[in-house]
């Protein structure tokens, strides 16, 4: 593999990893509060389609040339819709204490259904076959850093992405900072480890769980938005998002619930996801084996952390369990 090809591989790995990074950061925050939200794939899907819907209405009725609004409106739509999805999950699991696995899986079915329904209906109404294209909006999302072209290969490899890619990394770093260095992070972790103790210490368990899950959902939704607006250039097609949502959940484990590690993990998983395209003359059968890699690696990590039993690398202790104050 020559340098140019390797650089293009790195670029592709990064942009494939960015949607995963959003999903993983969102899910990490959620899981730190003790909520295992398996609705993340559905939430990311809805985050994508709601951005498309917002972008579509703004392109049709609004000012197509206003870059700021063209970006802001799909983003707001995406944040609100995926936040609302996470709110459904929160309400059912936190207030109504429903089983988290069951609720999450229904949320994923519902989200995938909602996304495909809106996407399919929109393309039928527009008569564009099975896809919806938003070129003007996507162009704004894809605008690279202004100095990228002056930096040669380095610029092309690392600075040619739309702003959402950098935002993903910034959010991950902020999330890591909050979890590691602030009181809020400490409280959040204690809620996920032992809600009864946190409750006794005067921490608002319900509040933390709601906030972490809804904010986490909104962040994950941006992954869907990045995928559709930047990665595929503003063209929505049903099911195109694939199994990326589940990969995001895999990264949470792979990176041991640490958002800063998540940045590297996502890029690595992005690379694993596409590496089969960069190996010359790889037969189709082996390609399918290569696509198995991210999941195998995750299983390996999962087994290793449970064998080593290192305390700081374990899943949050109350992960998956609803909290009821009177049940001790």
């Amino acid at each position: 593999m020559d340098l140019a090809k390797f650089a293009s591989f790195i670029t592709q790995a990064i942009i494939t990893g960015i949607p995963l990074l959003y999903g993983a950061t969102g899910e990490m925050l959620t899981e730190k509060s003790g909520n295992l939200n398996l609705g993340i794939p559905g939430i990311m899907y809805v985050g994508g389609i709601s951005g498309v819907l917002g972008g579509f209405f703004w392109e049709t009725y609004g000012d197509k040339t206003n870059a700021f609004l063209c970006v802001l409106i799909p983003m707001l739509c995406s944040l609100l819709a995926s936040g609302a999805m996470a709110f459904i999950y929160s309400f059912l699991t936190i207030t109504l204490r429903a089983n988290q696995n069951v609720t999450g899986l229904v949320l994923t079915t519902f989200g995938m259904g909602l996304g495909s329904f809106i996407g399919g209906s929109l393309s039928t109404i527009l008569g564009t076959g099975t896809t919806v294209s938003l070129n003007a909006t996507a162009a704004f999302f894809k605008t690279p850093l202004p100095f990228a072209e002056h930096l040669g290969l380095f610029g092309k490899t690392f600075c040619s992405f739309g702003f959402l890619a950098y935002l993903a990394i910034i959010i991950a770093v902020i999330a890591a900072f909050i979890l590691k260095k602030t009181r809020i992070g400490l409280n959040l972790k204690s809620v996920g480890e032992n809600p009864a103790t946190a409750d006794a210490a005067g921490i608002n368990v319900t509040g933390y769980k709601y906030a972490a899950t809804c904010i986490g959902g909104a962040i994950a939704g941006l992954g869907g938005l990045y995928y559709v607006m930047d990665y595929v250039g503003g063209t929505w097609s049903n099911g195109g998002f694939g199994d990326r949502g589940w990969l995001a959940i895999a990264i949470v484990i792979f990176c041991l619930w640490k958002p800063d590690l998540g940045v590297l993990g996502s890029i690595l998983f992005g690379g694993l996801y596409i590496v089969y395209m960069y190996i010359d003359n790889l037969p189709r059968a082996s390609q399918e084996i290569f696509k198995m890699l991210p999941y195998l690696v995750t299983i390996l990590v999962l087994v290793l952390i449970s064998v080593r039993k290192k305390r700081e690398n374990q899943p949050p202790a109350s992960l998956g369990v609803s909290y009821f104050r009177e049940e001790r």
Partner: protein
Amino acid sequence: MSHVAPHMEPPVRLSKRDVMPTWKGILVRIAGILLGVALSSLFIVLVTDLNPAEVFTSLFDGCFGTPRRIWNLLQNTAILLCISLAVTPAYKMKFWNIGAEGQVLVGAAATAACMIYFGNTLSPWLLFPLMIISSLFAGMVWGMIPAFFKAYFNTNETLFTLMMNYVATQVIAFLITYWENPKGSNSVGVINSATKAGWLPYLFDKQYLINILVVLALTVVMYIYLKYSKHGYEISVVGESENTARYIGINVKKVILRTMALSGALCGLAGLLLVSGSSHTVSVNTAGGRGFTAILVSWLAKFNPAVMLLTSFLIVFFERGAAQIATSFRMNESLADIITGIILFFIIGSEFFLNYKLNFRHSKKKEG
């Protein structure tokens, strides 16, 4: 409670219910379903301008309109029920196996492999036992891998089994590249379409009857197994408290491994019924999300196989009915997922009112 200064007391207080009378429980669930149906009709009316009554006629039509649709409904219920029965022993043990999808897929792949490689050489008397053994075995292995790590290293089984689903999907995708027929189609096509070797026989000329009977028998066996056998008892003790189980001399590791072996093997059986008993082909979508839906079926039935007959039927009823609504009113087929999702949210939500009581602050005064 009321000795505390009244302004400090929240308006609603929650407490856990002991037992709710069965009829009341059923009423709460029906209320939940009706609310879900009402909200999904509202959704349909909002996005289209159809009359909800018309829409719901179409829902019943989609399930019971023609004999063929009734058979489809029953077949889908049977498969979903089979997978739900399979995951139930594990859940009763509080082993969150969300890998049923993968276990079904490997079972399906094992069945297809037997049909492809031995279909035209072995006699049916050898072929069918081989298919059954290999599908059960494949599912069993797939289920026991996470169980082994759970039993010995306490590895998180939810995440492990979830990942195993995608490994299974890729295994199928890998196999399809060898089995594709015709070449380049990236699909296996109908296996042994000429000889029908390895196809489950049509009892009384009805294709799905054998599937349905097998699953019914399995329901009875599973009911007895969980309720009256020693294994069933051990499963519920491990599920309630591993420490108690250890204290009374149950080998927890053994129970986990044995139960997951059973669970996985039965998922493999569902794979057999899907490939040999209905579609006669295999693809990455063979399980079609049923492995996830089955979790719901089992959980909603409180892990009681008899009730699962009803919950699996209900879910398939809404799925197929909603699919018919989408076809007959020319809407996107994903409508089915939305409607099922909304109704399920309400069913899940209504569980709360079965387990918890809301004590309003004024209720005491009124009663007294």
